[in-house]
């Protein structure tokens, strides 16, 4: 029995530093009058994202004698938007998020997410605030910024906003992904492959790097850029080959949001996956009015990895999925 690996995957010293960083994050927001909130980990609806796989469980109890499916949140976004619509003002949350099918050097199916929303901010103002937080936590220099389009042109010599399927395939073939490219008919999948292999390794090496203005096809819950509707007001933050954050100038149009959820579900069906129930509470909150705001989700464990120079995510987790 002694051979059973019961020990934590992180050293106690790393856990101590983790506690300090969590305290630093809370202080950062307390100083700025951003309210800490907690929202449910279990909810009746979930995300429709094509590439997010949720866990579900069954609630049996009063009002649910025959069982009711509840989903573990992939992020606290929908519940936090309902708080915003209810007049919460600026809020943040340190929450566990759960994503099925994700495990590896930089992924654990259960991880800690820092998510916050700033009414009155656009995505640029929020990028600035995130930059300040990251500088404080990691003692690094200020972040650089580049548009998604510029990043592709600079590192792959390809304009992602005009490239067609065959151009994307050719670029993937040049990176050595011939077989994958030949069988891939989805432009966004190829863009993501090219980004992972052809852009990410070349950005954010010295200082964190914001990539913004993602293609409208990858808008997710971001507003489209009114000056160039080919792109969405979405950003991501990269540092030392780690994707640290994803943020939006938040979409507040319930009709557009519903249409995007439905489009997601059509893609899911086309890919042979079951559609997901669309969250009626979120749509009702958007209907009632989401204050203009920007929001961002940060992978806290990855921040910890950078702060502690850790090789793998499990080095900063008390227990990884392998011995959870």
């Amino acid at each position, binding site marked *: 029995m002694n051979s059973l690996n019961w020990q934590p995957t992180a050293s106690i010293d790393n856990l101590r530093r983790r506690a300090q960083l969590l305290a630093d994050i809370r202080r950062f927001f307390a100083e700025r009058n951003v309210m800490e909130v907690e929202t449910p980990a279990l909810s009746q609806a979930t995300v429709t*994202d094509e590439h997010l796989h949720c866990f579900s469980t069954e609630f049996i109890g009063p009002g649910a004698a025959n069982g009711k499916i509840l989903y573990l949140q992939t992020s606290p976004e929908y519940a936090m938007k309902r708080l915003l619509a209810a007049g919460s003002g600026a809020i943040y949350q340190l929450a566990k998020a759960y994503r099925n099918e*994700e495990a590896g050097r930089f992924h654990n199916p259960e991880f800690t997410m820092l998510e916050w929303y700033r009414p009155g901010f656009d995505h640029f103002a929020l990028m600035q605030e995130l930059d300040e937080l990251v500088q404080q936590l990691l003692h690094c220099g200020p972040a650089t910024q580049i548009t998604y389009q510029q990043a592709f042109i600079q590192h792959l010599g390809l304009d992602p906003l005009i490239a067609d399927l065959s151009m994307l395939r050719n670029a993937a073939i040049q990176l050595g992904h011939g077989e994958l490219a030949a069988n891939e008919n989805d432009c*966004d999948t190829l863009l993501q492959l090219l980004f*992972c292999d052809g852009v990410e390794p070349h950005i954010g090496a010295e200082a964190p790097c914001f990539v913004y203005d993602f293609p409208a096809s990858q808008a997710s819950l971001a507003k489209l850029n009114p000056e160039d509707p080919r792109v969405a007001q979405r950003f991501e933050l990269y540092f030392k080959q780690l994707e640290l954050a994803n943020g939006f100038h938040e979409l507040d149009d319930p009709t557009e949001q519903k249409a995007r959820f439905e489009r997601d579900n059509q893609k899911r069906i086309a890919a042979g996956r079951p559609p997901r129930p669309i969250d009626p509470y979120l749509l009702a909150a958007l209907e009632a009015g989401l204050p203009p705001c920007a929001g961002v989700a940060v992978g806290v464990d990855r921040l910890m990895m950078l702060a502690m120079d850790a090789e793998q995510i499990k080095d900063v987790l008390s227990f990884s999925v392998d011995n959870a």
Partner: protein
Amino acid sequence: MAFYSTNEFKAGLKIMLDGEPCNVLENEYVKPGKGQAFNRVKIRKLISGKVLEKTFKSGDTVEGADVMDLEMAYLYNDGEFWHFMNNTSFEQLAADKAAVGDNAKWLAENDVVILTLWNGAPITVTPPNFVELEIVETDPGVKGDTAGTGGKPATLSTGAVVRVPLFVQQGEVIKVDTRSGEYVSRVQK
């Protein structure tokens, strides 16, 4: 033949790629937060020995390769084939030059080696990490040199040539690391 999804990829799994059996060395999961997940897989092609990286979409499946490792004793070389025997079943197999390759120089009679079979036919022969072989030819060394500096070439009973310290003499048996081709020590007869 079985098919394996990327979730089943781990070091040691044998899969088919470009018509060649391959050994999975590493499997790294890569996923943009909102995007398609990929597996960046490091693979060794078992026939050419080439190591390469290949990216799969997570969830894709690949045909498994019917590859197995067998412990067998080396018997003899008939000029064209190297013959091996399973010490338990006494079954014999012959491997050709392509399978034995450079490792022929480490094969001493009765040594137990690993034969890697693909669809029942040997594709590689892996000698033990350490072999003990007799020196059949080397120049007499300078007396008194025990530091092992410099060294001299020595031809072993199997034809392999390794550098040995000056004090090691013809007729002695030495231990050699087959992975590096380096002399390790003298062996008491």
